[in-house]
Structures are given as C-alpha cells and as structure tokens.
C-alpha cells in the first residue's frame, strides 16, 4: 500500500508540474487580462493601429446593425439562425480611414482574449461587399453579451468562402482584428 501511495504522489506531482509549465507557456503567448471593453485593429494593412472602446463603438459614429438574423453553420453542418445586434465592421474601417490599399488586396483575422482565433485570414473584400453581414456583435437575441463578450465577431454563412464555417469565425471575447496585406 505504501508503494502504491508513493506512485500516486509521484504521478500527481508530475502532472502538476506539467500543467504549471504548460500554463506558463500559454500565458506567455496570450494576454487574457486585456481590457474586455476595448478592441484593437492593427496589422500592416492598416494606416495605424487603433483601440476603440465599446462606448465609442455604440456612440452612433459607426453604422449599427439591429436585430439581424445570422445563419450560422458549424463543421458538422449543423445550422442555426441567431439574432445579433452590433456594429458593421466595414463602417469602422471606412470611418477611421484604416485601409492602406483596396480591400481585395487585404486580408483579416479575428483574435479572442482567451487565445482562440478564427481559423485563417480571409479576403477583406467580403466585408466590403456585405457590410451588414460581418459585424461586431454586442447583443445576442436582444440580450447584451457578457461572458461571451462583450464583443463577438459574427459572419453570415452565406458569405463564407467554400469550406469555411461561420461558427469558427464567430469569435467570442473578441479583442483584436488584424488586417494584413495579402
């Protein structure tokens, strides 16, 4: 019994140490303690890096999209319709004059505070062509986003490129949008 308990302690300590170092690595890669009420837009496809607060986003300066139904599809082809309200991403890019080139030469990607990101960069012309179908959502079904927010990127499945799923680009706890030259 003593040997058994000794092995259990050794195994527990080893697992504890592995978790500790993995956590150190993860926390050195991401900063989950960013201010949740602000979002940053940066990248070499932008004229400047800007950080905008939610109160600025909802001040009326940018185009608001109210109670729009978005068609969401996941990688198992399960589909659902969810009502979101938020700010048109394209209106922010235009209003702040952020783009260094035409949208077809640029690509964008969403990043969350918790380390998640959308799978890959997509061409920015999608957002220009469908400004009301790519939004930074603040409400889901009329209820403000809390744990999942306060901001969440939302894209309608109808505008997704072939083989991409809108659920994977619906990024909770959105904190950064990177726009690069393609």
């Amino acid at each position: 019994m003593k040997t058994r308990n000794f092995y259990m302690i050794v195994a527990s300590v080893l697992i504890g140490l592995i978790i500790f170092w993995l956590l150190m690595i993860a926390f050195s890669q991401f900063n989950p303690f960013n201010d949740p009420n602000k979002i940053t837009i940066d990248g070499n496809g932008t004229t400047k890096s800007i950080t905008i607060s939610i109160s600025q986003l909802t001040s009326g300066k940018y185009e608001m999209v109210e109670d729009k139904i978005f068609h969401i599809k996941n990688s198992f082809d399960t589909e659902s319709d969810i009502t979101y309200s938020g700010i048109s991403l394209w209106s922010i890019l235009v209003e702040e004059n952020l783009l260094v080139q035409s949208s077809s030469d640029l690509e964008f990607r969403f990043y969350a505070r918790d380390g998640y990101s959308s799978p890959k960069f997509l061409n920015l012309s999608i957002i220009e062509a469908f400004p009301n179908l790519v939004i930074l959502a603040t409400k889901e079904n009329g209820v403000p986003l809390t744990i999942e927010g306060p901001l969440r990127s939302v894209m309608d499945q109808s505008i997704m490129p072939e083989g991409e799923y809108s659920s994977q680009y619906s990024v909770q706890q959105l904190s950064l949008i990177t726009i690069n030259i393609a």
Partner: protein
Amino acid sequence: MKEVKQDNINELEDVSKNDDGYRETGYDSIHKKKITNLDYIYSAIIGVLGGIISSLIPFSLLIKVWYPITGGTQLVSGHHVIWGVIVYGLTKKKENIILTMVTKGVLEFLLGDPWGILILFVNFIEGIFLSSGFYIMEILGEGETKLGWGIAGGIGNFFQAPFFWIINQRWYLHWSLWALAFIFAFISGVLITGLLGRAIKNTLIEAGVPTTY
C-alpha cells in the same frame, strides 16, 4: 455503508420470499447478470436527468470567470459523464452505463444540442470508454477503490476533448492550449466523473436506494 446496502437488499428479498401473497418483481434476479427492470428504470431516470442538466445548465460559466483561456471549460466537463458512473454504482453492469449515456444523448439531441445527432454518438462512445475504464481497473485490481473509479472516470471523460477539438479543426491554435485541454479533460474525469460520481453513488445507497447486484 455496505451493510446498509445489503440490509436493504436482504429486506426486500425476505419480504419477497416470506409473503406468499407478495408478487415477485425484478428483485428476484438481483444476483443475476441479466438486466432487470430496475436497471432499465435507473438508466431511464438517470439518463433523462443527465440529458436535461447537461444541456440546460451552463456549468462552463463557473470556470470561464476564473480561467480565461480557451479549453479551460474542460475542467468542468466531467459532469457530462458522471451519470454513467452513478448508474454503474447502483447496478454494477457496464452495459447499463452505455444505455444511460445513450438515453442522455437522446435527451440532449431533442433539447437542441448544437451538434445535432452527433451528440448521441459522442455519448455512446463516452459510455464505451467509461465501461472500458472500469473493465481495465477491475483487471488491475482497482475495481472498487477510489483510485480505480477516478482513473475510470478520467478515461470515460477523455474521449470528447480531442474529438471535439479535431472535429472543430482547431489545428491553428497554440499547442499548449491543446495539451492543457486534454489534461484538463482527464483531470475533470478523475475528480468530477470518478470521485464525485462515487461519492454520490455512496450517498444514494446510504439513503436507501436499492442496488441491483
């Protein structure tokens, strides 16, 4: 604790044997391996309970506040499989685990799980893994110990983490997040599925819930 359980069974058997007018029920096959009506009833009740609770109560909110990195919700994922452990504790039949998990999967599907019919398959495989975990622990002589139940729970809860991360095609996420999510899934299985499930099972038996083994 075992005495309480045994008394309970003996009492039922005595009543069954001594009273000529008493109609025998499934308790007659208490010491047989055949699945009894009581087994089916336990599977149905616990499976439905698990399906409703797993679907409608967002346990992940408990962890998102304290651990703000993706994959952290695996720390509480063990509650999905705890129902299989409870039913195993009451019946000691591995096929009952699978039956309970399938019942739970049907409920989750009917309650509109985002993964649709796939959630039924996931529950079925989790049941298989949990049964395998108990089988392996019995072979290793740990079938009745806390360690054995903990590791069996860990094995039962582990499957869903890599399955959903792979099906979500999260290749682009940092490798440390993958590793942490899988370790958390196993630890949650040990603590919540295995050990908490065992404690709940013991409490149920102490409270007088009849076992079927």
